[in-house]
């Protein structure tokens, strides 16, 4: 008897994605689906798709889904989760979506401690619109809106979402992982599992950043893209857990007594 030890998770539909060959969006999708399966959450999950390459994510996941406006997935997720706290809600957002136009929404969702999970795909570029500079684009990296390479003098340095969000006081789970390195995939899945688990326990906001690739707009083949993610992105975007809900609160909080 052959026992299948690896196959398509139930939470992922049996369809081919529109993603380019070798794009890590696909791996990230599958890992989320596996975690939803393993935690038995599929039937009470609602996903919120971004505007970005993952705009059609709702065609790939086998659960309820909403399509947000560009950058506003965390606001939309807030609306859904607050109204139906028993649902498991996640957003899936690119770096343009989350770290540029949606900065206020992600920051305040994290700060309010909204109890949903954010999957943040950092591929250092605007994939869907054809390769414009993202807030996470690396110094000197070329993109269609910085054809001579990102100039840190005028465009600043890349935004490090995990580093910044983990400075928020409100307890949360913040981790950075990658699916671009096979060996790191189990750890990535582990972070996702924790994120959804914390949500299921109604504990906190959770965000998992994926250091990802965009072979098409980087102009590299998929393997080269994975290597570039390791060599050029990861030193600046180190993997790891940046915050857990058990981290101590900062000093100076007067939580016991009310103030007038």
């Amino acid at each position: 008897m052959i026992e299948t030890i690896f196959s398509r998770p139930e939470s992922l539909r049996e369809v081919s994605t529109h993603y380019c060959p070798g794009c890590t969006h696909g791996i990230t999708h599958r890992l989320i689906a596996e975690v939803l399966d393993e935690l038995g959450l599929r039937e009470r999950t609602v996903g919120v798709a971004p505007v970005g390459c993952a705009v059609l994510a709702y065609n790939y996941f086998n659960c309820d889904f909403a399509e947000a406006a560009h950058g506003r997935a965390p606001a939309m997720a807030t609306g859904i989760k607050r109204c139906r706290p028993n649902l498991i809600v996640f957003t899936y957002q690119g770096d343009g979506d989350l770290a540029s136009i949606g900065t206020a929404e992600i920051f305040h969702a994290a700060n309010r401690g909204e109890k949903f999970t954010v999957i943040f795909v950092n591929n250092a570029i605007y994939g869907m619109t054809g390769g414009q500079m993202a807030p996470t684009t690396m110094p000197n990296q070329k993109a269609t809106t910085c054809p001579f390479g990102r100039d840190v003098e005028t465009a600043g340095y890349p935004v490090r979402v995990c580093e910044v969000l983990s400075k928020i006081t409100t307890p949360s789970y913040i981790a950075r992982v990658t699916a671009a390195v096979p060996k790191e995939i189990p750890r990535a899945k582990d972070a996702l599992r924790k994120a959804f688990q914390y949500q299921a326990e109604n504990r906190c906001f959770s965000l998992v950043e994926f250091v990802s690739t965009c072979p098409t707009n980087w102009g590299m083949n998929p393997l080269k893209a994975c290597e570039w993610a390791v060599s050029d992105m990861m030193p600046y975007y180190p993997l790891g857990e940046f915050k857990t809900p058990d981290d101590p609160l900062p000093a100076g909080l007067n939580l016991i007594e009310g103030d007038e």
Partner: protein
Amino acid sequence: MARVLMKGNEAIGEAAIRAGCRFFFGYPITPQSEVPEYLAKRFPEVDGHFIQAESEVAASNMIYGAACSGTRVLTTSSSPGISLMSEAISYCAGTEVPVVFVNIVRAGPGLGGILPSQGDYWQATRGMGHGDFRILVLAPNCVQEAADLIMLAFDLADKYTNPVMILGDGIIGQMMEPVEFGEMVDPETLPEKPWALTGAKGREPNILTSLFLDPNVLEALNQRLLAKYRQMEAVEKRWETYNISDNMDLAVYAWGTMSRIGKTAIDELKERGIEIGLFRPITLYPYPYEAAGEVASKAKKLISIELSTGQMIDDVRLAAPGREVNFFGRQGGIVPTPEDVRDEFLKLIES
């Protein structure tokens, strides 16, 4: 229920609760901040939740999300805040979800001032966002009607799965008048929304989106929306007339607060034997063109009176093609007195 004296803004909050609304996502702005403030106090009594959003952009997308979850939900704001909501309103229309927006209009453009205005008429009735869509616009002229229309707004939003907007002004929001509320609707007893995002348990996943890459599918959406708008135009037009007779010296067109000022002026002139009728659209979209046109046909002259530079004139013209439509209005937050309006009527009639 007995009548209670309430501010328009508070009555809007209470009426929403009566309509079964238990969630409010919003951002403070004068002159509507009493709505969130009222609800922040009142909601805990009915297990409702007020969430202060970080901005109007966020608030509007929160209520978009809330509506997707099948929940009755409200946000209120004032002019600049409403502009910031316009992208989300377009998304709500495209996704076909029911949401209720309240705009307590202030004088603009830009930061402008905080006094009453009707200068967002065009935006609400035609340009509430990008793309081919319309929202139902209801314009109360007193606190009681504000409360009634809020309750109606939720029903209409659900009926058409379309955004509905209440368009008031600072006076509607700040004024206190007696108000009697309808029966409390228990949110649990509202009809199910089978399209809502509630978790795909024992059914195929529901997907709510406004993205349709296939132009044929998007055109079909546009046609479906158009059919809804035609339906609204057929059955949802609401208006009030006052002192209409067959041989009027003047027909006055006014909505919201201005209609009340117009009435006082009409009453005064009636005492002098001058017959003036008033037409007040309650739905600004769909605009009651036929009824408005009929009133026009009975009057020698027409005038639109507004707290703007004259945004409703075109609708009156469309209702009464070929007729000259006069205008009187004040801007910047100035509300004309009945005397001003009366004098304007006289001048026009005598000219």
